[in-house]
């Protein structure tokens, strides 16, 4: 038989307690379920991110293929795999001595952006240890020189002489000596770089314009380009870690007086001097000065371009792929320019000091202080001096040192060149007439 109940005050209390208890319990259960649902979603998102990453990597390869097929390709959508609709979006931008590709990949809501820097394939000449950039010069080994690998000499052999008053061995070369023909030298496209250099100096398109002076670096930490009028000193009391890839255009000189960590893809162009007093840390940075660049230490890779002088000193390590480029300048019908590598400096990449376009009297030079090392290639179409230490290729138009009572020209003294110590793959920035085949120099995730 059916029963009927009439709620008493006691029952009502019990009921409300139960309802409260049930609500709390349901909330707890919902929370637990929510946490697990979140974990499942997270793992799925990880999977999508992973697929987006591999798609971006594949997109980078497809873009490289596309560029080698049609160098005028401006970027755009690229299909990846036959049989499905997976695609990536590629932005292409000429970026100094490299092509810079930005590859956007998306799987559901997960996005990955990769940056790839493209150069050109290494030319055969750069398999050599030493190349004379002047096809008339006679070369002599001297002092503690050690060269391992093929050398290209105009005469097809070393000039056999011993340095006067020098009791040491007359240098050592292990490898082939080949005669050098003018046609074998690299077909350079210096104008290509020079045009960009000039454009950068005139670039004052910053949406934000500020007056120079002493400024805290954080104030210039913006995504948007910034133009600075006049000389500027960036100083902070402690280490500065910039949060954006900055674009600074300075009509004047800039001095970085504090330790600064840059975001990848940062650019600093100035018409005057660019001086870094403290250490800097950067990846894929592009610095250009209309006069001189001085770096005093740190760890970075990127492009260092200047017109008059590049002074690398302190405990500075430029990692691969770094591109040091000096244009040189004209004064009183002579051609000047200096690159100085301090004794604790290492450059992994290329040092490029191109030939004099007007064939004026050259007084420019590249100097290695004792202990400075380049891993990659030195392409110096001017004079070199100092204790050259290269794990790679050394191309120079001349070499000089002074030993009382006279200057010696083109006696390779205390030079160490070991191309086999250079890691592979090793390719080139876009310094040659033929930019193809394009090669990936490096890439990273933005």
């Amino acid at each position, binding site marked *: *038989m059916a*029963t*009927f*109940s*009439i*709620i*008493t*005050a*006691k*029952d009502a209390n*019990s*009921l409300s307690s*139960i*309802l409260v*208890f*049930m609500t709390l*319990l*349901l909330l707890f*259960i919902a929370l*637990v*379920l929510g946490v*697990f*649902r979140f*974990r*499942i979603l997270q*793992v*799925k998102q*990880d*999977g999508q991110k*992973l*697929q987006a990453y*591999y*798609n971006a*990597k*594949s997109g980078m*390869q*497809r873009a*490289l*293929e596309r560029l*080698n097929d049609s160098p005028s390709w401006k970027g755009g959508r690229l299909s*990846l*795999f036959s049989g499905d609709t*997976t695609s990536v979006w590629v932005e292409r931008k000429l970026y100094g001595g490299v092509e810079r590709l930005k590859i956007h990949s998306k799987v559901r809501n997960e996005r990955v952006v990769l940056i790839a820097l493209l150069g*050109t*394939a*290494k*030319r*055969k000449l750069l398999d050599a240890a030493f190349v004379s950039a002047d096809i008339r010069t006679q070369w002599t080994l001297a002092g503690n020189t050690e060269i391992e690998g093929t050398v290209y000499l105009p005469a097809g052999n070393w000039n056999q002489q011993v340095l006067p008053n020098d009791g040491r061995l007359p240098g050592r070369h292990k490898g082939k000596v080949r005669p050098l023909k003018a046609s074998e030298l690299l077909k350079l496209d210096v104008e290509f770089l020079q045009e960009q250099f000039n454009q950068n100096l005139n670039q004052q398109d910053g949406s934000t314009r500020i007056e120079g002076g002493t400024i805290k670096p954080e104030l210039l930490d913006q995504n948007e380009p910034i133009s600075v009028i006049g000389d500027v000193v960036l100083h902070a009391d402690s280490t500065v870690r910039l949060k954006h890839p900055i674009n600074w255009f300075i009509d004047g000189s800039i001095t970085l007086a504090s330790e600064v960590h840059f975001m990848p893809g940062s650019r600093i162009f100035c018409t005057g001097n660019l001086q870094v007093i403290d250490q800097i840390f950067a990846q894929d940075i592009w610095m250009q000065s209309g006069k001189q660049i001085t770096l005093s230490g740190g760890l970075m890779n990127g492009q260092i371009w200047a017109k008059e002088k590049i002074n690398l000193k302190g405990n500075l390590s430029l990692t691969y792929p770094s591109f040091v480029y000096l244009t040189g300048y004209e004064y009183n019908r002579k051609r000047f320019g200096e690159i100085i590598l301090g004794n604790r400096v290492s450059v992994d990449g290329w040092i490029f000091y191109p030939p004099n376009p007007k064939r004026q009297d050259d007084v420019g030079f590249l100097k290695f202080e004792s202990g400075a090392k380049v891993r990659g290639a030195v392409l110096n179409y001017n004079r070199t001096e100092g204790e050259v230490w290269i794990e790679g290729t050394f191309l120079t138009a001349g070499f000089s040192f002074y030993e009382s009572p006279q200057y010696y020209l083109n006696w390779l003294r205390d030079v160490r060149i070991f191309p086999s110590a250079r890691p592979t793959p090793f390719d080139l920035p876009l310094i040659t007439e033929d930019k*193809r*085949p*394009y*090669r990936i120099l490096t890439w990273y995730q933005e």
Partner: protein
Amino acid sequence: MVSRVEEGGFSLAEVSIALALWVILILGAAGILWRVMSSEEVQRNSIAQNLAVRYLSRAEAGLVVGEERFVEGNWQIVRKGTSYTRSWYWEVKVFRAGKKYFELKSIQYRAPVFEE
């Protein structure tokens, strides 16, 4: 208030308690089941992703071509590498008990050599 309870009947409070216990029991059981299932599912997805990356990386590094099948514990991995004139293509699929858990694809361009 007045209360009248007939013999053998249940009060509203008792009915509520019984109902609540049932709901708790069912939700609790479902929760535990979901927890166990989801925890395993999370782990499986994670393992499948790791396996796919590992087998793909090996193929990319060694430019491995051809179809290969691997077994790791309860997992089956199918890797297919194809060499085309201008590129390599790989795909890795990771299965468990016939169910596909994860898949990765990759291309590597066969860069031409510079001819001087």
